[in-house]
């Protein structure tokens, strides 16, 4: 640990070389644009730009590709907050409170909070990578199938009532999401489930299609002809562009909690920023003293998942760089770029290629600071976007949605999927179902099932495996407490209603339909 500081200084000297600085700047800039632009995925962008890096020196190549990845996260929340358009799945949950804030004329505040959460989360993730990488990696190895399975279950239990509205409907939607997640070829046996013979469904329903269908398309079906010329910006005032002191106070603790959740999630292979953001939101709503305000523009509902996403994005590099095990598809792509450059990622990367490892870390600092400098003044510009009349906005947004889902797999089938999901989603909205828990179930479900079955395979069918290790036993205990607590409170609430009904004869009916 003693030579961390000299190493880091060396890293800065690498990252600040004009050549490297330039490429890292190019990377974050492209990333930022991709992030803002609804319709172009990070994966698609990196794989398009990958061939360009072949001719570059390895350090510059990796700085640029990494820059695209974390740069995109800075822009990713903008459409979620201002247009309810989650073009990047890791920012989908930000829609839940970000968009209501926009409708209240507080879109600028939400963006400001996002930037703050982003920088804090990223900074924490980088610090972690500098000082605790070996320790954290050893924790990661403690997460076997049983631990991951129970963690996912806990996430589902906590998140089933993620959105506004009735708890039962929330549970129903979570289960629908879980079912959607099972579509495709079963990993274990190769059985095709719910594919109805469509080859394109063998790899499952597309996450981007689910997010853009349930939020984007459904939202436009809802708001066409109801939102008029620029009235999204109706109540906007200049001073609302900046978060007030009270806003900051409300955001501080959620940011901290989100950051911690995000950085822990990213250490578990296959649990990237998207899952991290959902878990952070669910946890935040759970522990909040006023869960009722979530979904109505709660600052905590924006701050926590955003911090979580960003810290997960940075911490994602820990297993990737120090172990050579990519946490998600984007990381796999970046590893591929390293391999093409003749650098073998893995445990020895730190010692064999200190330029790459420490240069990358230093470039994270440089890049994140650049991104904040770039984005904070832009908030005002983005908010102006809302003054575009809605009737011009939505056809353009639909076009971006189509392009985006096409680019994830280069298949028109994605567009068709999105359309179907959007129409179904709107129907559900009309019936009072909120689509957010579907996304939660869809994201967590496959992990849950896979690890549940794997844990049982490894234990030869012994269910005890889920309580044997202290980590999974803890998750199980937490889950049980949650469910029991929920039922207890629900019962008490019913009693209160009954008492009230006794006092005011008319109140019961009113409460039931209110």
């Amino acid at each position, binding site marked *: 640990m003693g030579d961390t500081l000299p190493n880091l200084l060396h890293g800065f000297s690498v990252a600040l070389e004009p050549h490297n600085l330039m490429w890292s700047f190019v990377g974050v800039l492209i990333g930022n644009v991709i992030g803002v632009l609804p*319709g172009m995925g990070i994966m*698609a962008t990196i794989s*398009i730009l990958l061939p360009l890096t072949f001719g570059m020196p390895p350090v510059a190549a990796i700085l640029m590709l990494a820059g695209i990845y974390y740069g995109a996260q800075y822009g990713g929340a903008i459409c979620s907050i201002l247009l309810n358009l989650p073009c990047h799945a890791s920012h989908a949950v930000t829609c839940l409170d970000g968009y209501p804030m926009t409708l209240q004329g507080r879109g600028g505040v939400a963006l400001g909070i996002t930037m703050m959460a982003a920088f804090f989360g990223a900074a924490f993730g980088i610090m972690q990578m500098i000082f605790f990488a070996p320790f954290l990696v050893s924790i990661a190895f403690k997460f076997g199938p049983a631990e991951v399975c129970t963690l996912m279950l806990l996430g589902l239990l906590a998140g089933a009532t993620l959105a*506004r*509205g*009735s*708890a*039962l*409907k929330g*549970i*129903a939607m979570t289960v*629908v999401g879980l079912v959607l997640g*099972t579509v495709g070829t*079963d990993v274990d*046996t190769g*059985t095709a489930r719910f594919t109805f013979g469509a080859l394109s469904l063998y790899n499952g329903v597309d996450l981007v299609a689910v997010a853009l269908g349930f939020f984007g*398309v459904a939202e436009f*079906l*809802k708001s*066409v*002809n*109801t939102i008029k010329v620029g009235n999204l910006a109706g109540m906007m005032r200049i001073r609302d562009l900046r978060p007030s002191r009270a806003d900051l106070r409300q955001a501080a603790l959620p940011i901290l909690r989100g950051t911690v959740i995000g950085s822990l999630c990213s250490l578990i292979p296959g649990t990237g920023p998207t899952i991290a953001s959902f878990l952070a939101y669910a946890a935040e709503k759970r522990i909040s003293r006023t869960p*009722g305000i979530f979904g109505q523009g709660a600052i905590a509902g924006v701050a926590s998942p955003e911090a979580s996403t960003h810290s997960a994005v940075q911490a994602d590099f820990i297993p990737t760089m120090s172990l050579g095990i990519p946490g998600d598809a984007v990381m796999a792509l970046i590893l591929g770029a390293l391999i093409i450059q003749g650098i073998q990622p893995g445990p020895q990367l730190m010692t064999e290629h200190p330029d790459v490892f420490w240069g990358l870390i230093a470039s994270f600092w440089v890049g994140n600071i650049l991104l904040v400098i770039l984005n904070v003044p832009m908030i005002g510009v983005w908010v102006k976007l809302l003054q575009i009349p809605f*009737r011009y906005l*939505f*056809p*353009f947004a*639909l*076009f971006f949605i*189509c*392009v985006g889902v*096409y*680019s994830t797999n*280069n298949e*028109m089938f994605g*567009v*068709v999927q999105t*359309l179907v999901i*959007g*129409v179904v989603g709107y129907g559900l909205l*009309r*019936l*009072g*179902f*909120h689509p957010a828990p579907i996304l939660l179930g869809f994201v967590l479900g496959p992990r849950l099932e896979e690890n*549940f*079955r794997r844990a*049982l*395979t490894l234990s*030869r*069918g012994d269910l005890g495996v889920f309580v044997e290790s202290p980590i999974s036993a803890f998750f199980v205990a937490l889950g049980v407490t949650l469910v029991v607590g929920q039922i207890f409170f629900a019962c008490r*609430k019913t009693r209160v209603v009954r008492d009230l009904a006794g006092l005011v004869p*008319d*109140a019961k*009916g*009113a*409460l*039931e*339909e*209110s």
Partner: protein
Amino acid sequence: MVSPGQAGGYRAGIGVAVSDLKTARSRTRRLLSGGLVTLAGLAVTMEAITFGMGTMARTGPGFFPTVLGAVLTIVGLLLLIVPDRAEEHDSAAFGRPDWRGWSCIIMGIAAFAIFGELFGLGPATFACVFISAFGDREATVKGSLILATAAVVVAAVVFSWLLKFQLPFVHWV
């Protein structure tokens, strides 16, 4: 534990006629949503059972979806029985059906898929934006034409040229 929303409910309860109408609508909605969820649950269960349940040591591909189907069915039945207390407030916005808006949006996306497959990104973009723009009641042919042309320019410059989008800008089958 009375949220602002519930307080609103008390006020609504004062107007009895409004309350009756709302209760009736709420009942239809309850039957519809509960019924749909129950049906979906049953359908999932029926299909999932055929995948194979496996054993405890090697759970089959049907186990998880079957459990999900069963849970969905139970939740659906509960939705049918339990009155919906926490009805969403913006549900008021769902009053009148807007067939024009809906069909234009749906046709716009469908047009993107069809034109994209047949003629490439440019025509697909034009069709998608042009058709969906008519979803708005105030749309004019001229305005929609300009909007669609602008979108085509964006598609050409940003996606095809800068981002090397993999769907060709124009092509024939």
